[in-house]
């Protein structure tokens, strides 16, 4: 039954997380989508635990937490994929065209530069990069984050190209 309580927590999360995203967008809350997901996860997990403690004679916390964690991470995984995936953006760009096809040049010259500009805007809005005339330079926060990312990449033996390695 503790697993069922975990699943009830998942249902609460699945309702709360999109509701928070919609409210945040409508009211222009200065909170990142990931922060809203974290808030939804904490609230729904707490509600699930309280419900389990109230309803069950023997509530096994880790049984409920395991199934809750699994489905919430699956949600985060799916959310991350559709939120900022370049590949899926290219696919949707093709599907949304009236003729559902495009020459490669259109993708290279129009769609990818738009995606590129969108990511620059994310970095500027996040205070990691500042625009100066027609140039861009990193802020102190941007340098700090790049340093942390570089150290983590070094520790995990990850290159810094950001490209898929199809030799894998």
């Amino acid at each position, binding site marked *: 039954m503790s697993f069922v309580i975990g699943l009830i927590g998942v249902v609460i999360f699945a309702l709360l997380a999109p509701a928070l995203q919609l409210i945040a967008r409508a009211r222009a809350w200065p909170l990142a989508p990931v922060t809203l997901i974290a808030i939804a996860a904490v609230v729904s997990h707490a509600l699930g635990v309280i419900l389990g403690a*109230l309803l069950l004679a023997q509530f096994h916390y880790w049984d409920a937490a395991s199934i809750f*964690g*699994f489905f919430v991470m699956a949600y985060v*995984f799916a959310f991350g994929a559709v939120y900022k995936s370049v590949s899926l953006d290219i696919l949707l760009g093709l599907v949304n065209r009236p003729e559902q096809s*495009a020459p490669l040049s259109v993708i290279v010259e129009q769609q990818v530069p738009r995606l590129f500009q969108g990511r620059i805007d994310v970095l500027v809005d996040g205070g990691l990069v500042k625009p100066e005339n027609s140039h*861009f330079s990193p802020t102190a926060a*941007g340098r700090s984050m790049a340093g942390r990312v570089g150290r983590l990449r070094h520790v*995990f*033996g990850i290159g810094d190209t950001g490209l898929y390695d199809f030799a894998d």
Partner: protein
Amino acid sequence: MAIGRSSEDLPGRDGEVIGADLARPPGRRKRAMPASLDRKNATSYRVSTLAGPQRQPGRFAEMNMLPGPAQIAAICLSAALPLLLICYARIIRGSGRRFRLGCLSVIILFVVACIALPGQRHLDDVVGGAFLLATAIMFFYVLFSLLAWGFTLTLLTSLVQAGRPLTSEQWAAAYMQGGDLGTFTHNRLKLLIGSGMVMTTDGRLAPTAKGLAVARLVKLVRLSTGLG
């Protein structure tokens, strides 16, 4: 393997059975301690949050806060996964291959732990452990993929590495380490074409039936997650 854990098979303080105690008339019930350690099964630790054996509907119940043996194994292996990836960084080339091998290693170790750990296995303990391990794998994959293939993060690191202000065109060239956005586009398209979602015909790119299905799924996920 036992299926589930009923209240009857949960020994209480000093090995006495809580279920049996609950079956006694209220006046003859022994008073439960606020917290008890099961001496037959050291992994079973209960916190009586309020009512103990005289629990009434709507009151807080006993909560078992300690994970079972298989769940403990899964938690330890989850913590070991990033350490394993660090070790593999020295011996295995390719980020994706390294992550897959890391996951395979912890899954095999979890199966071995489920077989080798002493004592009776409970199905809910093993299932819970498997869910915990899968949760950790997904969590680390999200972080690992951001580090390895994150577009925005790599844009930032390339700007910092350039060491001077760049125009957007120079920034794109710095990001591609001498290449251009065409190289980047080809890299991402290779993924779409390789997975059968996009095909090229007469120099034009078009989604396949699989690509159309994935696009519909993406729209559905965007709608249901509040991204619109």
